[in-house]
Every structure is written in structure tokens, then in C-alpha cells.
């Protein structure tokens, strides 16, 4: 396991970045799949599963490429099912528990807004393999954002209760958004090579989408106070261990089995 990215050449910083993309998709897709059969309306149940399916598909691509870049013969499944929590690189936001449906949608919206901005930038990445994945994923995520944005507006500007719940969700999740825009030396190196956008550079576009949406939803944008971080370098919340205990159970309990 590598916590501190080493200078490029051996692919470590790229491996690091690809895991971040893959793990965000994996953990959020996993969280969404927890709703299957329990959503507030059949139509929503089906829609949310579509988003989860897109994210799991993206996971296979990002982690597949990560394994390739690492060059140790690990597959996407090996990475998903056989790394421990400290090796996961997703932001803390996506591992937040589902909470009520409003919290799930708010988490989705805050993430989608970032996800689309970074994927759009990655479409012109100097590494074609990354550009190709981004091209495909950006189309899917554009629809995710359409939907989550629309629901945030409607529920914010719905009943007094839906407004209250959405505001609560926003206030609770806001401190987890800062991490999306904090870069490290590896990010800087990849950005300089034209492979990824610098994380900090995405904030403006994200602020615009989020600001407009929250205004239309009549929700109050929280002040940028103290922000949580750690996920991107493998320091997670307590939730992560439980997610993995569930997700990795079969692979861990039957080490030699294929499924």
C-alpha cells in the first residue's frame, strides 16, 4: 500500500488517481444499491438502480485501468474485494450512510455536480485510456445530474417538511464537499502533465451549478466552514469498515473460490 505518491515514471500517482475515481463510483454505487426494493415509489426505485448500475460499470472501467497501470496483475475485482479500508481512495462524502431519501439525493447531487465537471475535463486528458472512460461516463453522469438536480429543486421547493429535510441534508453533508477540491502533490504532477485537471480548478464550475440549484430550491447554502478530509489518502470514517465487511464477505470467507 502506498500512502505517499512517489514521483511519476512508475505510474504510482496515476494508479492513485484511478483508484480515487473507481472507489468513488464503487462506494456510491454500493450505497445506492442498498435502496433497491426500499425506495419511496416504484419509479424512483427503478431510476436509482439505473444510476447505481452506471456507477458499478464505471467502477469496472476505472479499477480495471488502475490494475493495468499498477502492473501487478490485479483485476478490478481484486481491487474492489481484496483491499482493506486504508487502501480505498474514495472521498468521505460517498461513504456517508443513506439516511432518508432526501439525504441520499443531496449526497448524489453534491457528488454528481463535481463528477460531471471532472469527467468533462478528463475527456481531453492526455492519456487516451482515461479520455475514453471519461467520454462514456460523462454521458451517464450528465443524466444523473439532471435527475438529482431536478429532485433537489422540487423537494427544496415542495412542502415545508420536504424543505426542512433537504436543508438538514445539505447542512449535514456540506462539510464533506471540501475534500473534492483539495489536491496533493500527485494531483499537481498529473495536472502538470495534462492528464487530469487540478482539483482546485473544478471548484468554480461546481459552485455555479450548486449555487444556482440551491437558490432555485429555496435552500440556504451553508458557509464554507471546517471541511472533513482523509478519504483520498485512505483515512476513512467508521462507516467504511462496515461497507467493506458486507461487500467483501464472500471473497474474504472463501479465498480460493471463483464466482
Amino acid at each position, binding site marked *: 500500500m502506498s500512502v505517499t505518491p512517489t514521483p511519476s515514471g512508475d505510474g504510482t500517482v496515476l494508479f492513485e488517481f484511478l483508484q480515487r475515481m473507481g472507489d468513488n463510483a*464503487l462506494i456510491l454505487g*454500493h450505497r445506492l*444499491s*442498498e435502496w*433497491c*426494493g*426500499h*425506495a*419511496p*415509489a*416504484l*419509479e*424512483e*426505485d*427503478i431510476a436509482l*438502480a*439505473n444510476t*447505481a*448500475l452506471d456507477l*458499478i*460499470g464505471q*467502477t*469496472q472501467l476505472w*479499477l480495471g485501468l488502475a490494475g493495468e497501470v499498477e502492473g501487478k496483475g490485479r483485476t*478490478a*475485482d481484486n481491487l*474492489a*474485494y481484496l483491499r482493506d479500508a486504508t487502501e480505498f481512495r474514495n472521498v468521505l462524502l460517498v461513504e456517508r450512510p443513506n439516511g*432518508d*431519501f*432526501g439525504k441520499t439525493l443531496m449526497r448524489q447531487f453534491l457528488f454528481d455536480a463535481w463528477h460531471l465537471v471532472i469527467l468533462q475535463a478528463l475527456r481531453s486528458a492526455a492519456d487516451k485510456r482515461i479520455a475514453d472512460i471519461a467520454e462514456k461516463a460523462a454521458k451517464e453522469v450528465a443524466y444523473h445530474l439532471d435527475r438529482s438536480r431536478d*429532485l433537489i*429543486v*422540487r*423537494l427544496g*421547493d*415542495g*412542502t415545508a*417538511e*420536504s*424543505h426542512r*429535510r433537504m436543508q438538514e441534508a445539505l447542512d449535514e453533508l456540506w462539510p464533506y464537499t471540501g475534500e473534492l477540491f483539495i489536491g496533493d502533490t500527485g494531483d499537481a504532477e498529473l495536472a502538470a502533465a495534462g492528464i487530469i485537471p487540478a482539483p482546485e480548478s473544478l471548484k468554480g464550475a461546481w459552485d455555479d451549478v450548486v449555487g444556482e440549484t440551491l437558490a432555485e430550491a429555496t435552500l440556504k447554502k451553508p458557509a464554507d466552514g471546517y471541511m472533513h478530509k482523509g478519504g483520498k489518502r485512505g483515512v476513512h470514517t467508521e462507516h467504511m469498515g462496515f461497507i467493506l465487511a*458486507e*461487500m467483501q*464477505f*464472500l*471473497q474474504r470467507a*472463501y479465498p*480460493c*473460490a*471463483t*464466482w
Partner: protein
Amino acid sequence: MYAQMVKTDGTRVKSLDDMEPEERAFQQRIEAGQKIEPKEWMPEAYRKTLVRQISQHAHSEIVGQLPEGNWITRAPTLERKAILLAKVQDEAGHGLYLYCAAETLGISRDEMYEQLHSGKAKYSSIFNYPTLSWADIGAIGWLVDGAAIMNQVPLQRCSYGPYARAMVRICKEESFHQRQGFDILAKMVKGTPAQKAMVQDALDRWWWPSLMMFGPSDDASVHSAQSMAWKIKQNSNDELRQKFVDQTVPQADYLGLTVPDPELKWNETKGGYDFGEPDWKEFFEVIAGNGLCNAERLGARRKAWDDGAWFREGLLAHAAKAEARRTTAPAAAE
């Protein structure tokens, strides 16, 4: 089956001579293979029976999401996770198509939910059994979806248009479900001894409940006779069960599994298998709400519904506000 022991309100099947002209014309159309469409004249008992049957079928689809949904978060590979999620999502879709078909008969989806949540409406007995291992996911696809397909294929030709069309769509989507189940098991039986044991254990637990899905023998049932006369049921329960056993046993052999029925034996004269009788006492207990998972399944559905009320109301309130803004905005601009 997904709709088990559907009552028809009748005490006997009327002959054409016993019918008023309107009903006779209706019955003759059915016998001529014509479809009955919404808003056309139909006997009240036909309408009510269909509402019961279709809603029970729909309830089974959405309650059926739960036992399999259990394993989505524990699926052993990314591909298996995606396939299972897509499959369980399909079940929600099937429930939706069926609720919509029932709605053409003058009942709302909310009313049907109310009947489910209050315990008044039934759903298939099979979904009150627990999914205890990953092999259960394979067994459900193979056996439970296999049994469901036996029933759903002929229902594509049923007399009520919207139901028949929903079944066409469902059957088209369902064909991947049984295969994915079998595929899970086929992979596992070639795996480690522990995996193979897991598969045998799943078959041991799911075999009999799968046979019960077809319901008890209905050769003497007036309800079944009436449903068949109306062409909303095409085969007797025993007929379908026999077909299912004949189809499934060779597949179990292929997987190298033992069907847990000491009485199972090929009968050359009838060209099918002889097999034992399921435990019907257990079946009636499960149907009556006393199965291992009845309370949990219904509890989960009720919770999803109750917890989601604010969401549904919020969206409705927004739609009303937006509509009001649209209708008053031009006036304000003038």
C-alpha cells in the same frame, strides 16, 4: 405461482344458456380468442377476479425484490453485483407494469398498496423464505423464476388485453433471469467443495417451496374452472407442476445435484417424473402469514411506503406550485 389460489366469487361455472345476452356475447368473444379491453363491458366477477389476480402478481414482484435484494450488497464480483441489481430492478419494473394493468380495471395503485400493507392482499408464498447464502440467489433464478415462467408464458395469451401485453413485456425481460440463476450455480458447482455444498443446501431448501408455488391441486376447484373459462388461467396447477419437475430434474442432474425427494422416479408410461407431495400444511401456514419472513417482508414494504410519504407529497406540492406559476405568470406579465 405469483398469483396463488385466486378466488372468483362464483359458486359454479355458468353455461352459455344460463347467461344474459350481454354476458353470453362476452363469453363467446373470449372463446373466439378475442381480447377484452378496458372500459368494455365485462361481468363484475371477471373484473374483480382480474384485479385480485393481477394485483397479487404485482405484489409478488415487489415483495420478491426483498429476498434477492438482500444479497446485492454482498454479491461476490462487480459483474455479479451489476447483474443482480439489474435483475431485481427488473422485478420492480414488472410490478409497475402489472399495477398499471390492474389500474385499467378501476383500482388505483395506492389502493392496491393499502391492501398489501394491511395484509388483506396476498403475494406469493415463496418470498417468505429466507435467502441464506449466495447459492440461494442462483436457486431463486433457476427454480423460482423457472416456475414463474411456466405460468407467465401461457398468460401472454390471456383474455384481458392489458394483462396479456404486460406479460409479453415481462416474459421478454424475464428470459435472462432464469439463466443468470443457473449460471451462478453452474459456476459454483465447478468450484470448491464448500461452494458445491452451498448449492446443494440451497436446492434442499428451495425445492419444495418452488413446487408449492403452483398451489395445491385445483382439479376440483370451481375458482380455477371459472378462471379457465375466462381464459385468465390456462393450465391446471398439477399440469404446470409436472412440467416444471420434468424440465428441472435433468438440469439438477447436469449440475450434479440431488433433488431432495426420495419418491422422485422417472415414469416411462406417463413420460414424466413421479414425485412426492409438498408439505401443504406448511404452505397454508405461510399463506396465512406465519412463514419465517412474512412479518419482515411486509414490514419492509410498509416502512418504505411510510418513510417515503414526505417525498411523494413534496414532489406533488412542487408540481402544483409550478403549475400555478405557469398559469398565473402570463397574466402577471400583461
